[in-house]
């Protein structure tokens, strides 16, 4: 019995370690005008060893997947694979397991001044992967967004944006409009109640 408990504990620890040592790769991909386009894109990444949770949002034009940290996948490799698949990656961000973020900056962004982009991390209420897709897709629709990443564990949105085109308040208003509370803007009750059951996070101050 003791051996079984030790085995289960060890298995759980190894799974947790395995889950923790994965990098999250997210890219904005232009050119996906049809579902079969996404099919070709997924197949292009099939050869990446250890790839998990490959997800494509056609309407948001984004792609996301997890890879083991030890592969040390680079943004340039992502761009190259997307190009080989017949599409164009315009933004790539890799959130490493150790907290570091690697980004791909397209040629157009190189000409932009680094000071023009402001980085902000703030809480956004949510629960699940669907919330993540909804939040990030909504923010990416806005002009001047360089990248947006919502961390499901910490429930914080990491966003880099052009202050000349958009403000954090406008970003929060957009996030709230799709049903997720932010520090300065709360979602309408009607919008919140229309969220899928698994997305209805606990709202502070409400019964």
């Amino acid at each position, binding site marked *: 019995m003791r051996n079984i408990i030790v085995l289960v504990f060890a298995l759980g620890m190894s799974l947790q370690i395995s889950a923790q040592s994965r990098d999250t790769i997210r890219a904005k991909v232009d*050119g996906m*005008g*049809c579902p*079969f386009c*996404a099919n*070709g894109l997924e197949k292009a990444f099939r050869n990446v060893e250890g790839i998990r949770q490959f997800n494509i949002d056609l309407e948001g034009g984004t792609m996301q997947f997890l890879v083991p940290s030890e592969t040390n996948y680079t943004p340039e490799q992502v761009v190259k694979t997307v190009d080989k698949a017949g599409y164009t990656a315009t933004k790539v961000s890799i959130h490493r397991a150790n907290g570091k973020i690697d980004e791909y900056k397209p040629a157009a962004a190189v000409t932009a001044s680094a000071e023009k982009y402001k980085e902000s991390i703030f809480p956004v209420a949510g629960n699940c992967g669907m919330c993540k897709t909804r939040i990030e897709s909504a923010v990416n629709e806005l002009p001047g967004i360089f990248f947006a990443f919502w961390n499901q564990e910490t429930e914080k949105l990491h966003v880099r944006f052009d202050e000349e085109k958009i403000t954090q308040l406008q970003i929060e208003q957009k996030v709230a409009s799709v049903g997720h509370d932010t520090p300065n803007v709360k979602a309408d009750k009607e919008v919140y109640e229309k969220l899928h059951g698994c997305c209805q996070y606990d709202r502070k101050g409400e019964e």
Partner: protein
Amino acid sequence: MKNQHYILLVIMSLFAFSAMAQGPPIRTDKPIMLGANKGTIRTYYQYFKHADNHYHIVPLMFEYNVKSNLELGIEIPFASVTGFDRREGMKPGDIMLKAKYQFLRKDKMGQTFRMAVKASEMFPTGRPSEVPHVGMGAFQTYVGALAGFESLKYGIVGELGYNHFSEIHPNYLESRMSFGIPLKKPVYPVNQVTLYFEYEARWMPTTDDHAVYAAQGIQFAFRSYTIDLSLQVPLVEKVPVHFTRDIAVLIGGRFIL
């Protein structure tokens, strides 16, 4: 050139554009390719009646992207004929080799515009019957151009080409048009049902013969598979007898490797 030729050319140019919402059209080619080292296997059964004969065509098609913008393909039709010109069993018809090169790609979020050129060569490997696919008894060289815009809401694809026979038959200009209406919201993995309305036009400049065909089809697309059903009828057929065909029924499918 007579006025009616100009009118026909304009009509064909209009017919050269097709609106395609989702999924590959059933009877029209597309300039969008699915990436390097990807391929498609396709086959279908087509039945049409011509004169006193009934033709059953089953082509096997394989297309492969050697690069993200270069596609090579082969088409081997098998044909069986019943009726006056009866033939036993399915026999190979005229084999075709083809290539397509995408030279322009403009991508934006959720949309793309692409242009490609294509060429094909059909070899007289089938028993001469003067019926396309079965055996035309002559080499056929086709060159054409495609342009297409596709977004998540709609798509437009146009093809215009010229088919040259080495002998016997008159050369012709060909254009194709298709319009697709998706019945479901575009999602990934693929799960879509699309209605297709497709048109095909041909004009033989040397003889002034021309033909226009219309097809109604439906396509079921799931993950990497499609199942295609299409019914084509002639609207105008002022062409040599051996080019005519009555109603054509197509049932087929494709698999994306």
